[in-house]
């Protein structure tokens, strides 16, 4: 129950095995987290020892009690006063003796239970400390990563590391680690206890333990592929169902319900069949473990009975290792149950630890991702920017073999509007990435006010820009919070003024809670256009000297776009602007239009100049009237 519903996907996930060397490294790193709480961990270890030893003492004392009943008291005395007290209560000394042992037993169990609860709680506290530190480290590290990391990795992958993987580590830390220690104690302890009762009876385990080990090993090996197939098939089925449901309207539109159902049925059949096969083979395990257990007990009973018989008939002449009392047999049976438990559990725990290690490796891999290159040592704060931006002979590629920008140059004097147009994939957005230093070019210089952008701090450089991107980004929070995000300390008045300028004020007013309406995935349904207007309002709050509009109005229909033109113009006023747009109408008024194709500027000039030259731009422009 310790793991909250992980859903079927998380279950029996592929447990990748690590090689020994990385395994040790990963383990060391987990331990280094644990080491921060070494005193607590030490306390836990002590509690574990006490709790388990006391639990082990129980059956032994009960054996003494049974011996006392059969009239042959065998144990030594501790707490003699208690013993005398118990004896004094009853006329029959046997009852007094038994009571004495029973009180000892109850005491041992009580303390043991208290300890084990304390221990479990302590482990939860420790593991929560560890994983909250881990999560914190991961997230803080995430914020320092270059933007390219997020371009290369899917959000789902990042999330699964920070939630599922860390959760796996958590389970392992709070349960498995403890269980391994406890198992070892129980194993060694019950072995010692049994040896002290009757070394000869231990021989029974020389038969059953190897049998059980051999069997579980063989079985798990055989079963594993079935379980892998089972989670694989289930994943396929779920994937198919998800895909079809998200495309349900399409399926309806083309009336493909019957086909889709048939495909689903096939996948369903193989999923349930894989499920069955895994279960079919696994069905043997539980009963066999039980059987081997029962076999041990049968053998112990037989041998124990035999030994007891010998002990009674031969009296003192019996060979010492064979001698046994009825209480001894009883304790022995109880210990053998205790003994069998951990052995069977071991394989399971080992598997879990392995998947936890694999999870930890994924988490550490993220932590080891290099952060954004630090600012240069003598980097300056960029203050009071005029807005002179230039790129000189810039070369850039995301992957070495695919150059995106080739010998790219542009010059944007303060307060001018530079538009970048061109076909998809020409490198328009890349220019923005370089301006903002989300990426750095392989060669060439980008400068702001004549300063090489590598020589100023990233933070101050980015603060000098305001961006409105095609992909609107809103977070779960009120409308107010989302707009106010544009400037620290923005007041409600500022926010309203910005919303008015972006022509979204009256829409917001009509929302159920106005500016305090919470925007969330399942809440208010905003159209793409409305979302974009909110991000435009956010940009309105910023007072940076440079502005980037990357397809900013492509989600807004032309009529709405026209209505916010005024606002956009005031947003652009006095700033150096970079505009990327599909619609040529939106770039016509730019001071300089760069036509980019395959990473180079093939034409530039203002609208009239480009039309007059009759090049690529004029062809593009005229095509809309065809």
């Amino acid at each position, binding site marked *: 129950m310790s793991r*909250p519903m992980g*859903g079927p996907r998380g279950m029996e996930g592929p447990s990748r095995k690590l090689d020994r060397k990385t395994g040790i490294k990963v383990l060391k790193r987990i331990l280094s987290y644990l080491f921060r709480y070494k005193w607590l961990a030490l306390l836990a270890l002590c509690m574990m020892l006490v709790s388990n030893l006391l639990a082990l003492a*129980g059956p032994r004392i009960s054996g003494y009690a*049974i011996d006392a*009943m059969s009239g042959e008291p065998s144990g030594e005395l501790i707490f003699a006063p208690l013993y005398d007290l118990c004896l004094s209560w009853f006329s029959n000394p046997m*009852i007094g003796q*038994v009571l004495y042992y*029973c009180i000892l*037993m*109850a005491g041992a169990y*009580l303390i043991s*239970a208290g300890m*084990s*609860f304390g221990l*479990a709680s302590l482990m939860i506290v420790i593991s929560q400390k560890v994983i*909250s530190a881990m999560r914190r480290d991961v997230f803080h590290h995430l*914020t320092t990563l270059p*933007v390219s990391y997020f371009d290369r990795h899917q*959000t789902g992958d*990042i*999330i699964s590391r*920070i*939630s599922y993987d860390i959760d796996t580590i958590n389970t392992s830390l*709070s349960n498995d680690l403890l269980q391994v220690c406890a198992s070892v104690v129980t194993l060694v302890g019950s072995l010692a206890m049994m040896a002290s009762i009757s070394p000869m009876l231990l021989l029974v385990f020389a038969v059953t333990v190897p049998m059980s080990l051999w069997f579980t090993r063989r079985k798990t090996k055989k079963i594993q592929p079935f379980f892998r197939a089972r989670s694989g098939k289930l994943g396929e089925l779920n*994937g198919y*169902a998800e895909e*079809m449901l998200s*495309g*349900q*309207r*399409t*399926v*309806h539109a*083309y*009336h493909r319900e019957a086909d889709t*159902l048939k495909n*689903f*049925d096939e996948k369903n059949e193989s999923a*349930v069949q894989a499920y069955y096969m895994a*279960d079919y083979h696994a*069905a043997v395990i*539980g009963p*066999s473990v039980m*059987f081997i257990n029962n076999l041990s007990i*049968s053998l112990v*009973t*037989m041998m124990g*009975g035999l030994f007891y*018989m010998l002990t*009674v008939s031969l009296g003192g002449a019996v060979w010492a290792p064979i001698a046994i009392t*009825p209480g001894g047999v009883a304790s022995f*049976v109880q210990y053998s149950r205790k003994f069998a438990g951990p052995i069977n559990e071991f394989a399971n725990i080992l598997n879990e630890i392995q998947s936890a290690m694999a999870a930890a490796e994924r988490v550490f891999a993220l932590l080891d991702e290099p952060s954004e290159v630090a600012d240069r040592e003598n980097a300056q704060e960029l203050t009071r920017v005029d807005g002179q931006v230039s790129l000189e002979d810039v070369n850039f590629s995301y992957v070495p073999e695919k150059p995106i920008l080739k010998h790219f140059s542009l010059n944007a004097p303060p307060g001018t509007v530079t538009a970048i147009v061109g076909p*998809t994939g020409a490198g328009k957005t890349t220019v923005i990435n370089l301006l903002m230093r989300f990426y750095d070019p392989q060669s060439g210089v980008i400068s702001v006010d004549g300063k090489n952008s590598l020589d100023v701090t990233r933070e101050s450089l*980015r*603060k000098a820009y305001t*961006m409105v991107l095609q992909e609107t980004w809103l977070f779960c929070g009120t409308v107010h919070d989302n707009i106010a995000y544009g400037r620290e300390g923005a007041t409600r008045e500022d926010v309203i003024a910005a919303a008015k300028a972006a022509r979204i004020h009256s829409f917001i007013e009509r929302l159920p809670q106005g500016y305090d309406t919470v925007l969330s995935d399942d809440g208010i349904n905003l159209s793409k256009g409305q979302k974009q207007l909110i991000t435009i309002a956010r940009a309105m709050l910023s007072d940076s000297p440079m502005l980037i509009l990357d397809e*900013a109005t492509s989600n807004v229909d032309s009529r709405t776009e*026209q209505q916010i033109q005024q606002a*956009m113009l005031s947003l652009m006023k006095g700033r150096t602007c970079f505009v990327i747009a599909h619609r040529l109408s939106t770039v016509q008024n730019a001071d300089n239009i760069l036509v980019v194709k395959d990473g180079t500027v093939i034409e530039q000039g203002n609208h009239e100049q480009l039309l007059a030259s009759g090049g690529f731009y004029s062809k*593009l422009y005229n095509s809309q009237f065809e």
Partner: protein
Amino acid sequence: MKLMLRYLRPYGRNVSLVLLIKFLGTLAELFLPYILSHILDNVVPRESVPQIFLWGGIMILFALVAFGLNVWANQRASAVARDSTRDIRHDLFEKTLALSSRQVDRFTVPSLESRITSDTFHVSRFLGMMQRMGVRAPILLIGGLILTATMDLDLTLVMLAVLPFIFCAVFFIARKGIPLYSDVQAQVDDMTRVVREDSKGIRVIKALSRVQYEKDRFDGVNADLVRAEKKAGITMAASNPSMNLFLNLGLTAVIFVGALILGTGGSSEVGVIIAFTQYFTLIANALMSITRIFIMYTKAAASANRIDEVLACEEDMPLASAQTYPDRAYDENRYIEFDHVNFSYNKTKNNISDMSFSIPKGGTLGIIGATGSGKSTILQLLMRFYDVDSGAIRIGGRDVRTIPMGELRTKFGAALQNDILFSGTVKQNLTFGRDVSEEGLRSSVETAQAAEFVDRLAEGMDYELTAKGSNLSGGQRQRLLIARALAGDPEILILDDSSSALDYKTDANLRQALDESAGTSTRIVVAQRVSSVMSSDQILVLEEGQTVALGTHEQLMETCDIYREISHSQMGGAILE
């Protein structure tokens, strides 16, 4: 529970067989401690070695029988679980596919997804578990009690007295603890939401230098999550120690009472007490299993209810008879007809108000208007994803509500907004299970301007698309969607803002190709660009769900201010972003 029983019924014979086998297996297991006490109390005193081996052999035999029967029963139980799970999933998916758009909106797609994936999983796991442990646990419990009662009634009563404590302890802890886990789940959702938002918006966050703010925000949700997990974990951590404590205290009590009876001249025997300790463990384990089944049951029952909710949905867009919605004489000039249509998604404010227009067979209609003006809604109504609130929509004189769904939908070829491609080859996506000839396929690819990039793919039409076609660019996806719509050679072609990601040149080529090839198809084009609709026979200008104007490009340029405004803004008007 009803749902589960309903799906188990067809396999009733198998289920009973499983239960019977399980019953016998469990009985065999129950006799083991009994034999044990017999050996110690009766056989050993007789000092006969062969007797000990005989009874020891019997014990092992019983263990073997228990083993065999349990394995057999478990395997059969898995088969039953397999079959009923298959049936549940099939029915659920079939029903889900048949839900109307309004019903889907109400459930939401993610919720439907999780019903098919995780809810059926929980139910299926429970079905298997119930057969395996559901019989075993009660039999161990009751049988154990009966057997111990025959051995020694007084000691049995002692044992019986402890059981309620164990049960209550587990039950109350579970009842308190399980809801805490939904708290944890909620906090996990909060935490992942922050991570998701920030990974998506990293550019904005960095551009606005709000990294510290985001760190604080994360630390906040992280702390909340830790608090919730700690609380739930520590609550649940009490269950094992308390269970063990009661169990062991019970054992202690049995021994002491046994001594009392023995001491007062009773007949308790040592072997019996040893057997008791064994039964006690068995019974206590059975009790734990029962509580576990109970906990699993609450979870599975919740899942079963969620499944049943979907299965119980009534068809909300049934086929209506022509009596209810009478036909109108077929008129070539009114092939598609909207007749005073009103419609609202949430039944409060109309999304479409009093809409009337008609399209002749083979004609073209362009629809233009602002975001949220109701352009797509018109198409949704025409294809009967939703039913009109009042008024009527007719195709070829028949009300769409009287046309069987299959017949209605196969009239259309539609490239809708938010339409998706599926994983599979380009060809599979285009034919989409329909009968499409090679030539038809080729010409639709060419018309859709997709040939240019499909031919450049090494595998051509056999190129494997990933889910949602995410390994194509936006423009490429749109062109394939159009090709898919064309491939069925539909009576009515619908293009809903489906060239927005194309550059002007490609868009122009597409329009030209459509005009040349679409031939007899009646065409409806929704667009934001005037250029995409200007060549249509009629253009419908919408604002807030109402018709502002209807006419040709030239007419509208003269009479409609809004249309003129849009047109100017796009066609070389002198305004910059």
